[in-house]
């Protein structure tokens, strides 16, 4: 017997280090992992709020939260303006209102934004603006597209009011009625304004 054990090849294996082999992963496990990852992704998308510190259950995202904000008062008006600004204007003028070199001038403390002559300001987004313009001592020569067709009076008033009261600016609010009046007065105009024309406005 003992002689047999010694000659058994298995006995020499016992003396050596044990080694783990490798085997391929079962296909069902791969599928299960993919289903779990997909389910996790869906769950995250629904309840994660993209890690925004402002989103709490039962709200799903900041946009969802927006729908539940109070619909009246100055705060809500400016909040609406912020939403519109970030959707429409921030692309070129920057979310911080500082503009972008070679793209769009700044709004911060800009004489065109905080002007008392609101008619000038309202005309710029309504029909656009072309050609040279001096903003805070810097010369620009660009084309601002007309936004009048895309923005209703209330939204345009909200976004202009937001611009006049954000980033340290302090100026009066612009009402939807003011915008409607300017829109009616300039209904026949199809061409963008020039800075010289706007400055001539009383």
């Amino acid at each position, binding site marked *: 017997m003992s002689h047999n054990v010694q000659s058994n090849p298995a006995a020499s294996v016992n003396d050596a*280090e044990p080694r*783990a082999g490798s085997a391929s992963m079962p296909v069902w496990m791969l599928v299960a992992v993919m289903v779990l990852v997909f389910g996790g992704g869906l769950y995250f998308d629904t309840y994660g709020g993209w*890690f925004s*510190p*402002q*989103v*709490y*259950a*039962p*709200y799903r995202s900041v946009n969802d*939260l927006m*729908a*539940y*904000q*109070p*619909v*009246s*008062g*100055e*705060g*809500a008006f400016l909040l609406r303006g912020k939403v519109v600004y970030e959707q429409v204007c921030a692309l070129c003028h920057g979310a911080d209102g500082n503009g972008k070199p070679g793209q769009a001038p700044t709004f911060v403390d800009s004489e065109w934004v905080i002007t008392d002559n609101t008619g000038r300001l309202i005309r710029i987004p309504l029909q656009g603006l072309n050609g040279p313009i001096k903003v805070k001592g810097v010369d620009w020569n660009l084309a601002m597209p007309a936004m009048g067709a895309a923005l209703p009076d209330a939204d345009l008033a909200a976004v202009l009011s937001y611009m006049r009261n954000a980033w340290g600016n302090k100026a009066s609010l612009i009402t939807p009625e003011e915008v409607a009046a300017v829109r009616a007065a300039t209904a026949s105009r199809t061409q963008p304004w020039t800075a010289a024309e706007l400055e001539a406005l009383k």
Partner: protein
Amino acid sequence: MNYGALIFLVGFIGLASSWFGLVLAPQLQLGRQPITKIQGGNDPYPSRRPGLAEQGLQVYRANGCVSCHSQQVQQSGTVFDVVMTELGTNQPAVVAALAKLDSKLTGASLSSLPQDVVRGVNKLQADEVNAAFKDTGAKVAVQIRPVGPDMDWGWGRRATVAADFLQDSPVMPGSQRLGPDLANVGVRKPDVNWHLVHLYAPKSVVPDSTMPPYRFLFEKRKIDRHASPDALQLTGEAAPEAGYEIVPTAEAKALAAYLASLRADVPLFEAPMTAK
């Protein structure tokens, strides 16, 4: 065994990923939140608690109140109510508009406003109802109302959010509710004396209470000539024998001031509601 490095690496990645997910991510998300503003205004929120209440926070912590009381209201949804505040001059038009809506409010009950036109509807329905009154001259207001079991209990009007704790250190939102939620206990019970009596003898003011009495926060004194102005007004079994009085210590006063200061009931951007 040649796998020491691999086992170490797997263990390290496992611990590191949970540290990233459970410590670092929340810290990046909420750790540097600035003082926020009350929705619809410029008032900063939250303001600091009064000095005595700040001391009371430490008494609350030292006595383990947090192991039985949570300070976080949860909400399961948000609904809209449409309230008519003014009738205007064109009553027939208002009655006609009401008739088209599925409302409990009828022409007969219009004499005493404000009244709810509809309650518990979603945003779209609320906007529809609002639009229905646009040309009638009546003034209606759309109100935002968080709902959920905690709101039904009367524990708060909206969900608690991180901003509510910005002035507290440490933050004690709690995880067990052996007692009621305290996020808004200062709204429900604003009276400091009520809290003192409740701490000394919970059953004397809440018969079903399971809270242990915290009598070591009070002093029993023999009345010497004049009774102390701080002495508790106790009745029944809780009252001391004649000639003695129960006086709260500084700790008890601080804790009561802290409890009375607990209120998280202003509308915030992240927790919208219609303020009352």
